[in-house]
């Protein structure tokens, strides 16, 4: 019995700003974790990571991070990814402030 592939998102930091972004299904980079493409197939994940890593003028350090489906889209699994999606806990800086609408 093969082990089930745990779903992933492709994430990176933007080259110019350094902020955290996620690869969407329509090849955009979104600052919102919930807009990321949730990838449930390992081969597809590798393809998407290659696609992301090739965008050397846009992003730095692309990698696959574990994620899970949520009511509004993919959610982080590990707390580190939770912080990346939100910002630091000592100030209302980063995404939690920048993306407030």
């Amino acid at each position: 019995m093969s082990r089930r592939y745990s779903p992933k998102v492709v994430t990176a930091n933007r080259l110019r700003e350094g902020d955290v972004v996620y690869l969407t299904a329509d090849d955009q980079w979104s600052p919102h974790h919930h807009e990321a493409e949730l990838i449930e197939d390992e081969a597809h994940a590798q393809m998407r990571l290659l696609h992301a890593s090739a965008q050397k003028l846009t992003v730095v350090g692309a990698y696959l991070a574990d994620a899970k489906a949520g009511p509004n889209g993919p959610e982080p699994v590990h707390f580190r990814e939770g912080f990346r999606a939100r910002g630091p806990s000592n100030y209302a800086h980063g995404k939690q402030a920048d993306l407030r609408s």
Partner: protein
Amino acid sequence: MYSYSDFDESFVRSRVAQFTQQVERRLDGSLTEEEFRPLRLMNGLYLQLHAYMLRVAIPYGTISPRQMRQLAYIADTWDKGYGHFTTRQNIQFNWPKLPDVPAILSALADVEMHAIQTSGNCVRNVTADHFAGAAADEIEDPRPYAELLRQWSTDHPEFQFLPRKFKIAITGAPNDRAVTRAHDIGLRMVRNAAGEPGFEVMVGGGLGRTPMIAHTVREFLPVADLLPYVEAVLSVYNILGRRDNKYKARIKITVHETGKEEITRMIEERFAELRPLFGGNDQRLLADIRAAFAPPAFRNAPTDAYDAFYKADAVFRAWADTNLAPHRNDQYAIVTISVKAHGQTPGDATSEQMRLMADLAERYGHSDLRISHEQNVILPHVHKSDLPALHAALTQVGLATANVGLISDIIACPGMDYCALATARSIPIATQIAERFKALDLEHDIGPLKIKISGCINACGHHHVGHIGILGLDRAGVENYQITLGGDGSETAAIGDKTGPGFAYDEIVPAVERIVRAYLAQRQGPEETFLMAFRRLGMDPFKAALYENEGAQDAA
């Protein structure tokens, strides 16, 4: 303080110009990230969790009011209005954008500052006693030697690609306030039998995943032999140090694997070769540098107003009791400005606070400021008659917290709130401990107690040498905090011992409280500090306080 020579100025400017072009080439695609990364790191620029981070050197922790104002200007113009003072006497900006970094470096160069060698496998910022040139217990101001080492090590062609980073700390006093025994090279000034000053040279200290206390390889090194001796240590390490394994590459491992006797012999042998090559230019340079560190023109004035205010005002008295240290001039005091208000991030200062500290240094402090490895700011020379006015001014911007050396004066690394290497958060643990003990109103009763928190095994928060050390780890996807007790970063340096299993994020503050209550219950009196009590009692009573009810909780 030391002012840049024409050579320093043109060197720093040329590095800014060079990096400006490197950033341009990265942004237009001529450089890949793999090519650019080592170049940006050589200029102190990291990519962290949420943004870039620029680490700026504050050589041996000494900074002028003009430089402090420029840091405030940088914080306002290109960052989020604050900066973070680190355990290596640097300042970090957490939110710069890559295209802005050349302008930031240029603004730093305008005030004789830079970010060179704040990263990479080279000799990093030389740190020093933050009370240098002022402390009552000092033999000699160590900063001229630190500046000599800075000039010698900057862009030193032989030592730009060491096996690993290399950290030197220096103190001119027998009481070690610079954690010299936890550095790659620690230099502690001592006198020989003839009364001449020299250095005890300690090699192979370090924290991180393999904490070690440095070995003394020379009991007494004449001050004139400093550069050739340090060069001998570096060159032995450069050849022996392990480049095959990053985790075994620091000199502490080299010393450990080679043995103290053998490495001492090799250093002395190399020193014998190098010594004749130093023809005296270093000593002429040192003499020039020394002149730049001449003490200020101390004022001679009555201190009665201070004595009267001390008796009359309890808030001032509490601050004076914790935040002042003895100055070598009786009429003066060394003031530590706590950048650790309860609930605030340790070491963070806003641009407004930076400007006020710069103003106060000019008005009351002979225009001298220091950054301590304990993440506070020091005014090293304040006449006692000025202390009441200084205290009142500090109070207005939240910088008059009377907690230096107490339980809320916590060292904390940025942890997972910022750092890409971190495995858990540090900052909220520090702020919660500080707020808890403030609510209990216990910290002045507890007395001297150093808590140090690191958010990963690399130990930037010096947890190994905290009286209470806290290490944040990732245990199966959850933050978990390991406690060590009995660490000491002073001249009686020791690595703390682990208490046992770690604690979850919401359990760590109560765990610290249990340790402290066990101390209060067992101490022989207020004069027995936490560290003294731990050394007398050992681990058992603290272990009992930490873990004895665990079974009951599990059963419930």
